[in-house]
């Protein structure tokens, strides 16, 4: 009997992500310095007192990154929740029922996919205005089409499969079939897609903040800090490098998980 075997990527990914998430959670309750506390020790290089150095207001970058990554994590997680959630609903409905609903929604989907995602986010943000929650909504909307398309395929593939026909014959309601009979069988595509989506969300949030349409202080996200850091690349390179490093590490960890999940799926078939 083939048990789902953990693989190296999955373990390494979980460890890296786990450490960062733990660090972020700690950051909710404790940071070495208050993240917004300004001091006259400006733009100091990393030292024992300030592991990542300080920024132009003399704030401790380590503490700020600790908190900023929390915002980033929250945004990415909620974005995926919206994108994948709505995407799954749309995909389920279109994939399962087909027909005219499918035609219309998929055409709309095509049209939405035609906008490059950053552009779509840009447009939505200029309607909603910047800010943490608007970024989440904007990115969430941006992410819907790809999930919808993917889930549509996953649901449509099951539509005429025997166990679903049986479920219909036993009189299960459509909702029950969708949720209980079909959904669990889409997880093997959904889970890796979630990790990819998560990473895209982190990178997209960073790009948006960089373009000045992302989160607004006092919320700090890593993208915001990175755009701040760009202006000080010469006088405080540690700022950009530490923030960029943490983003890369977080994304790296999660994509290792995704890689691991995919390998696991393949092994089990």
């Amino acid at each position, binding site marked *: 009997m083939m048990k789902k075997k953990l693989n190296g*990527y999955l373990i390494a990914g979980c460890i890296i992500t786990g450490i960062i998430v733990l660090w972020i959670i700690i950051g909710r309750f404790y940071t070495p310095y208050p993240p917004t506390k300004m001091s006259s020790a400006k733009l100091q290089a990393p030292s024992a007192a300030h592991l990542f150095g300080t920024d132009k207001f003399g704030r401790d970058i380590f503490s700020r990154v600790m908190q900023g990554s929390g915002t980033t994590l929250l945004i990415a997680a909620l974005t995926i929740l919206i994108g994948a959630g709505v995407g799954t609903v749309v995909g389920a409905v279109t994939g399962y029922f087909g027909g005219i609903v499918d035609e219309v929604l998929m*055409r709309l989907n095509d*049209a939405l996919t*035609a906008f490059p995602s950053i552009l779509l986010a*840009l447009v939505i943000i200029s309607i909603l205005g910047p800010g943490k929650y608007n970024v989440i909504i904007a990115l969430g909307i941006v992410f819907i089409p790809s999930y919808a398309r993917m889930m549509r395929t996953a649901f449509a593939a099951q539509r005429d499969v025997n166990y679903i026909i049986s479920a219909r014959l036993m009189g299960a309601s459509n909702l029950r079939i969708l949720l209980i009979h079909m959904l669990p069988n889409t997880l093997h595509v959904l889970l890796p897609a979630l990790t990819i989506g998560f990473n895209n969300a982190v990178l997209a949030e960073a790009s948006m903040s960089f373009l000045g349409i992302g989160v607004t202080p006092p919320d700090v996200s890593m993208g915001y800090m990175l755009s701040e850091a760009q202006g000080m690349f010469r006088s405080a390179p540690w700022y950009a490098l530490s923030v960029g490093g943490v983003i890369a*590490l977080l994304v*790296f960890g999660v994509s290792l998980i995704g890689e691991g999940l995919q390998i696991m799926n393949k092994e089990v078939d």
Partner: protein
Amino acid sequence: MKYAARRILALFITMILVSFLAFAAFHIISGDPARAILGMNATEKQLELMRHELGLDKPFIVQYFNWLLGFFSGNLGISYSYRQPVASLIMPKLKVTLVMVLISFAIIVVFSLPLGLRAAQKSESRFDWIRTSINQLCMAVPAFFLSILVSYVFGIILKFFTPGDFPKMDKNLMGALRYLFFAAVCIAIPRIAMAVRMLKSTLIEEMEKDYVRTAISRGNDRVEVLKKHVLKNSLVPTITFLGQTMAEIVGGSIVVEQVFGIPGMGRFLVASISNRDYPVVEALVVILAFWVILSGTVADLINQKIDPRLKLGGRA
């Protein structure tokens, strides 16, 4: 032939839908172009005059159809911000972006194909995880962060190009190409990583199919199998991916242009959005969307040539 006609019809329908969405979206945006043009001290009367001048006092649907008709006759409207025909404004920028995107695409193709092949071949080596991890890491770096690094290292320190001083294409083509090359690299790197990953898994998957065993049973070497059978079979997902890439690097160029100070379409788009310059934004968005859909359609048409089975299926 029928398939091609159907795809082109679909492209057309989607474009109409896209244009409507774009047009509607920018009319929902709360800002007032008249206000944007006239500034904060403008009086109601001034604003009204301006709105009339811009045709903003007509009903939405009328505005849309006027615009759509104009679009087909090559008249993309007049920019609010520059009082010039949009077409003449955006042409030079489109040229810059197009060149950058094409360079970037070329880099992606040139690097990812051999790397992907190699990754697939070496997938059973003990050091595969190193390769995979490096690959994942390349995907993890935000494109603009890469851009910042590249423009500092290659621009300021090594002086291979002068950041902020993009040479005019018609005057100094080589200089412009060199400048664009560095930006294109920044767009390309994460995409190369993705392409390698995709190629690797496609090739491995393909190598495990039954027909490979058949081919070997006929006396083919693994290399021959790869050349004669597997590559062609991997081509369809690869071309689909490249089509997506073609579409997505345009989106990626928006941010990279910003960092490198490249006067391309992306930067112009961002500026025009914040200036509420609807005609420009709408034209750019529709062109962008066209690019995206076209990439997909072309990829599909090529695939359909490669894989005769696709002729039957049409849309999945």
